[in-house]
């Protein structure tokens, strides 16, 4: 009986394994990031996201591509580090005979970068049995609510303190995400958390007076970016006159920058895994 039982159990396990590996997990999960030339920062953000995804999907191979040619060139020149562009990664997948693919961008919003990489990926659609694309960080309303919870947990604030998150900003219509997130923070009971952007709306000129009106004891500045790279190091926390840190201080506010990319947060890493699971379960 015990022999029969273990045989039965074995068959069941094989069936389960096949079920999850073949029918669900793709052969490859391609994680696409903008990229960063800050090696140490990459280790705690992009590397960490990729590693967490690999742990969550042990039956899939996790591969990497960057969208920024400038960063790819710089890493190749400086560090002899070869990183695929999206097209190179797709060509390699085709050459390796990969048939089932999930692509997960680590981008924050559904902007130009996302549109471009999606077009590059889908150009190879006829050479795969299945390509599925995970959504960027801020896509569904649930995503926004989860990000709000994550940010509140990572940056516990006193009532008389304020937090300003620096987003990238874009001319793409998806730029509305930043103002929406700002609205949702306030609607969710956090009048002291603000979103501003470097290259879009809301601009610093709008955020600064709003923060001043609260007269906070301390303002924390942090990136609403996956990687604390150039923007965080220079535009946010730099010592130059035009950094947000200096501008907030010159406006008479006690200001402290925090250089943590959102990719460092376990909750954010988990959210990408949820996005991957969501597309895998789609038909």
């Amino acid at each position, binding site marked *: 009986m015990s022999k029969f039982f273990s045989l039965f159990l074995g068959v069941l396990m094989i069936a389960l394994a096949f079920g999850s590996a073949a029918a669900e997990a793709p052969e490859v999960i391609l994680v696409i990031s903008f990229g960063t*030339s*800050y*090696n140490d920062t990459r280790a705690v953000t992009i590397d960490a996201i990729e590693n967490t995804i690999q742990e969550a999907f042990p039956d899939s191979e996790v591969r990497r591509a960057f969208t920024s040619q400038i960063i790819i060139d710089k890493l190749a020149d400086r*560090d002899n580090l070869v990183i695929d562009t999206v097209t190179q990664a797709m060509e390699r997948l085709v050459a390796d005979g990969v048939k089932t693919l999930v692509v997960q961008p680590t981008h924050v919003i559904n902007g130009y970068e996302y549109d471009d990489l999606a077009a590059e990926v889908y150009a190879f659609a006829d050479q795969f049995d299945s390509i599925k694309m995970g959504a960027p960080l801020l896509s569904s309303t649930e995503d926004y609510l989860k990000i709000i919870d994550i940010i509140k947990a990572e940056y516990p604030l006193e009532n008389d303190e304020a937090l300003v998150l620096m987003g990238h900003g874009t001319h793409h219509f998806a730029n509305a995400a930043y103002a929406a997130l700002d609205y949702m923070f306030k609607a969710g009971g956090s009048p002291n958390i603000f979103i501003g952007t470097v290259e879009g709306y809301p601009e610093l000129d709008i955020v600064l007076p709003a923060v001043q009106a609260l007269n906070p004891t301390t303002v924390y500045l942090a990136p609403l970016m996956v990687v604390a790279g150039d923007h965080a190091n220079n535009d946010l926390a730099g*010592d*130059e*006159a*035009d950094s947000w840190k*200096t501008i907030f201080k*010159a406006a008479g506010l006690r200001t402290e920058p925090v250089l943590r990319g959102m990719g460092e947060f376990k909750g954010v890493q988990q959210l990408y895994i949820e996005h991957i699971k969501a597309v895998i379960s789609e038909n």
Partner: protein
Amino acid sequence: MHLTNRKSNFFALMLTMAVCLAAVFGLQPAAAASSFVDDDGREVTVSAPFERIISMYSAHTENLYDLGAGDTLIGAHSTSTFPAAAAFLPRYDYNADPEKVIAADPDLVIIRPFISKRNPEFVEALETAGIQVVSLYPEKFELFDDYFRKLALLTGNEETAEQILTNFHQEIQHISDVTAAIPEKQRVFFESTDTNLRTVTDDSMAGLAIQLAGGINVAAGAEPTTAGSSIASFGAERILENADEIDVYISQRGAMNAGGNQHTIRIRPGFQTIKAVQDGRIYVINEKMVSSPNLRFLTGVREIARYLYPEVMDDLSSWQTDTSATRRDLANIIFHADHLPIYTPSSSKYYEEDHSGHVYGMFEDIPWTDADFDAIETIVVRGLIELDETGEVERFNPDEPVTRYDTARAIFISHTFPEPDSAAAVSDLSAADHPAFIQAMADFGIMDLNDGAFEPDRVMTCGEIVDAFLKAQPYLSKEAE
């Protein structure tokens, strides 16, 4: 008699000629130096100073400006951004069509062996077009003087060069003497690139700068990554083995952003155990100051000495006076009191980018040759002194007085004050644009009140400003955790 006379005249003439010939051919050093062999092995003869020069390397460009030969430059490679005037020269590229260079009709193009190795056909095209090409690069610091003299010879500035070199070496020697007298030596790790955490070799310019600045290199004796390279292997493991020994951590950054910065170094696994990281003594130095063959090497040596021995190198005693302070004084006091690292742009695209406020090197009244250029630029770029932005050209107005509000503002921005236990009463708070500056000075006893009034418009003496900055010292901003 006649004959004899003639004869003696003849001999006299012959003698004179012989002396002259000797002078011209070989006995006089100045004449011998009018030809030399360049670093590609090319015989170069200078019959007259060159007047239409294109420089294909940023250090050549900078050195020519130092020699006072900036006006002979008709173009430069795009990496030439110091002094600021160099950034506005027409750009030429050795990776592009040589016809563009030929069309500019230069009488001299100065390259370096790297270029002739990489693009031999570019150099060949210039020479075929009859343009004089000279290739120079001092592989070692010992060869710098010789290299600098060749640039001087090409432009007819030999005398200036000798004065500059004498001064350059005297100043370096002075720093060396001062730091040599300090009994407790600081130990340094120098990161040249964050890839595999490499350092520099002992005989590299940066390695030499550490020695000259009186530092002990924790990575002394590190082997070059490839023969002849100034970059040396080291790695995280050996850094961490020496964690207790590293008093100061210096990271070199430049166009390639090679080394880490204060934040990225701090977040590396295990790096919190490094003494310099715990003490907040991580410094980022621009590669142009320590790894490029130019006179800013002196600035680099002084800069490293400041990181190592701030109390000695940033001596404030010359400002502890009762004379009224000018903006020039304020800049110097902030620079030294806060031990601020010198600012210089690292991007070669700096002058192509938009800058909302001041642009480095563009003050009409503070030229790059000003003795306080570095201190003033560093303070202004950090937004610590307000500028009058109404004029058409940028002016710093170095001789204008400094008010108590100016000082309060500078201290507020460059320091981080905690929340005060209680707010001090200040009677004229509303007289200031940003009362927070004044309130903080009163709350933390940085500047005294006069019968409860701050008097923001009152002019200060140098000594009063020094006193305020010394009181503010405990609140100096450190890298955020």
